[in-house]
């Protein structure tokens, strides 16, 4: 999966017929736009997969490539170039959206590495899955209590009653889980250097830690969402 850049196979440019590395949006010889290259999101920006990114540089590069690729620049071009401009820009936008967000970037890179992680960080957006089996051990007791309180709150709401004390408890619980999530984010960042700079074994260890942290984060994020929904209902 990794090092796609090295495994690139030469293909001929549709316009000038000179062969080039297939991880390129433009022909290095005639500068014409090319069909979407086969690489990963990092290679769109000419980067090797890594977790520490300079977001200013990334944005600058995003804007530079947008100016050259965007369908607005090909409004009167021939059909094939129009089509590739659309596909290339979609790839660029998808790549930028994923890489600029620390969490999405981490998930994406781990998936590139073949790690099995639950789909996307906000479980809410995926097929309604709630991951009930993976309660982090240190949270078992609190989660049990929280679920009871949520049930109670929903029941009270159904009866059209408010319960100020219960509401305060839930707010407190939400604040706590928010804190725990922020802690996970810090821990995740802590693994970035190990992955980016480390040797193979250190890298493997960092990867496993990050997968576990992402699981925990997803769990917490679902809890916070449940509380927010119940309070807001």
């Amino acid at each position: 999966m990794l090092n796609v850049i090295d495994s690139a196979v030469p293909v001929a440019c549709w316009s000038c017929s000179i062969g080039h590395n297939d991880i390129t949006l433009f022909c290095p010889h005639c500068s014409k736009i090319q069909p979407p290259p086969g690489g990963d999101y990092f290679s769109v920006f000419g980067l090797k997969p890594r977790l520490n990114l300079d977001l200013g540089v990334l944005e600058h590069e995003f804007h530079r490539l947008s100016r050259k690729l965007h369908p607005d620049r090909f409004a009167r071009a021939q059909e094939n170039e129009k089509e590739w401009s659309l596909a290339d820009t979609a790839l660029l936008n998808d790549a930028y959206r994923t890489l600029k967000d620390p969490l999405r970037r981490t998930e994406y890179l781990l998936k590139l590495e073949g790690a099995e992680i639950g789909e996307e960080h906000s479980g809410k957006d995926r097929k309604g899955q709630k991951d009930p089996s993976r309660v982090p051990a240190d949270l078992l007791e609190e989660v049990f209590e929280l679920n009871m309180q949520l049930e109670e709150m929903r029941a009270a709401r159904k009866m059209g009653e408010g319960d100020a004390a219960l509401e305060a408890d839930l707010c407190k619980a939400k604040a706590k889980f928010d804190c725990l999530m922020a802690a996970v984010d810090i821990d995740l960042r802590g693994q970035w250097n190990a992955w980016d700079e480390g040797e193979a074994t250190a890298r493997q260890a960092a990867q496993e830690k990050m997968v576990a942290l992402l699981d925990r984060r997803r769990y917490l994020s679902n809890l916070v969402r449940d509380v927010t929904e119940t309070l807001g209902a």
Partner: protein
Amino acid sequence: MAEGRVVGIDLGTTNSLVAYMEGDAPVVIPGVDGSNLVPSVVALDPIPAGGGRPTVTVGNSARKALIQTPERVIYSIKRLMGRGVEEIQSELKLFPFRLSDDVEAGEVPRIQLGELRFTPPEISAYILRQLKRNAERFFGSPVTQAVITVPAYFNDAQRQATKDAGRMAGLDVLRLVNEPTAAALAYGLDRAKAGTIAVYDLGGGTFDISILKLRDGIFEVQSTNGDTHLGGDDIDNLLLTIALDEIHAEHGVDLRRHPGAVQALRKAAIEAKIQLSTEAVTHFDIELPNGDRYQREIPRAVFEQLIEPVLERTASPCKQALADAGITPEQIDEVVLVGGSTRIPAVRQLVDDLFHLAARGKTPQIKLNPDEVVALGAAVQADILAGASKSTEELLLLDVTPLSLGIEALGGTVARIIQRNSTIPASATEHFTTGVDGQKNVAIHVVQGERELAADCRSLARFDLKGIPPMSAGLPRIEVRFLIDADGILKVTAREQRSGLASQIEVKPTYGLTDEQVESMILDSFDHAEEDFAKRLLIEARNEAETILAAVERAPESAAWPMLSGGEQAAIQVASAHLKAVKGGEDSAVVRAATLALDQATRRFAELMMEAAVSTALRGKTMDSAGEEMGEELTAPHPMAAAEFK
């Protein structure tokens, strides 16, 4: 010019405009009558004496027909674009749309106009064709390419319907641009600056809020939100309801039973609203059918209290947009106001509060005319696409999709595949498989919206992946690629990966026209005869001349004629004689100039006729004939009220 010009079009609920880039500044192109705004009103003329298809008129002349032949006139068609019969029931209560009765659920609604039926995109196509003609007349050369604006919060079907309308009008729609984004372009053009701006766009029928980051000529939309059913119409309805209730209570007259009178009263309500933007108090003074007078004073403070709930509805989209962009109000450097309703002082106050402007020594940006700024921005985008101009070569617009795209999953929940506020073009790839051995088809339901259940979202389309090679359940791996293009419109492709076969895909949009249907609705091919352009201009000019001459011919029979001074009558006769003398000539410009002169000479006469018709309607004399067809409900907006300020 090799490829002709690209024009920018604002296809509005109430008014439409066409603009182009003159050198390095966008300019609105005036219509035949010299006015920049073309009312989005379409009328079907009576069937010609010799038989054949009746002609269609658009704009001010169509608006005039509303009083005499309301059953042959339609307005506010934008509200029906891209919507199904089931979806528009609420609109039907508010507007005098007459649906053809043979439309089935799931079909594109057809509107009965006189003896003919039209789909909403066809009606919009007539408006677009008028704008196209106005531009062609102005340039003296054909115009075939355009950028058209749509509300940012328009969904896929509404966008597709707008594009279809362009095609029917003989326009190659190079791009759909979101209205608030277009406004930002118009503002950003002369100031190559960096910063974060919010565009607050409250029009006649829709509300949009967009937050953009400007940097080195790149306009990057961070987030957008809105409400496609919130605008000046809602404010008019409030004033109207009060007037109707008070008239009923105080004078025992129930005007609700007289749609013609309701229309006239609405006109008065709109005028009162407009006046309250500049005056501290306004007066209603209306003669009722029983001879009583309804007199009412409305101080601005009362008006503001009244409309507060309506204005408050714009607050939550603004807050959501800020949250989605991940910024606080203090981080907004500038707020641009767009749409006629932003002239209301209370709206400006609300914007000030929402974005903490006064506290930071700022005021909302209102330098450009809020009725024209969207069209001006569309012209800038048109120039960017034409790619031939120095003034816009550094500009680039990066817009977002306003609504999340999802697939209906098991249990009716939504699996979101492209999040709202993703920069477009955007794509997502999903894999599907079969649940039964030997299954050959897989059905996919695509929805748009933010709700958890598919049933609560807007259904976009149902796809059937066909021709899957027979395999054990779960074995086929069908890759489906969803791509939202730069117009915000979804495209889908699919292939089965194990067999390598490209899956056949049958896309059935939930609401929309098929390619063939659009093709069959393309307005007369006359428009495509570019080689005969000069001839066409002449024919059009002569047609216009005949239309106005026929109207002037009948003028002396009108009750309004004696109200003109002798001088005014003489001026009309002189202009009319001049037009008759020149209309046979070969120069379309001469014929047009004479037509315009006659139009100017009859302007006051036309106003008098309009006033007479309105007050007749209000006194109930012709209510049964004029009013009946205009819709039973009290809230039908009055298209005669132009959003203009004296």
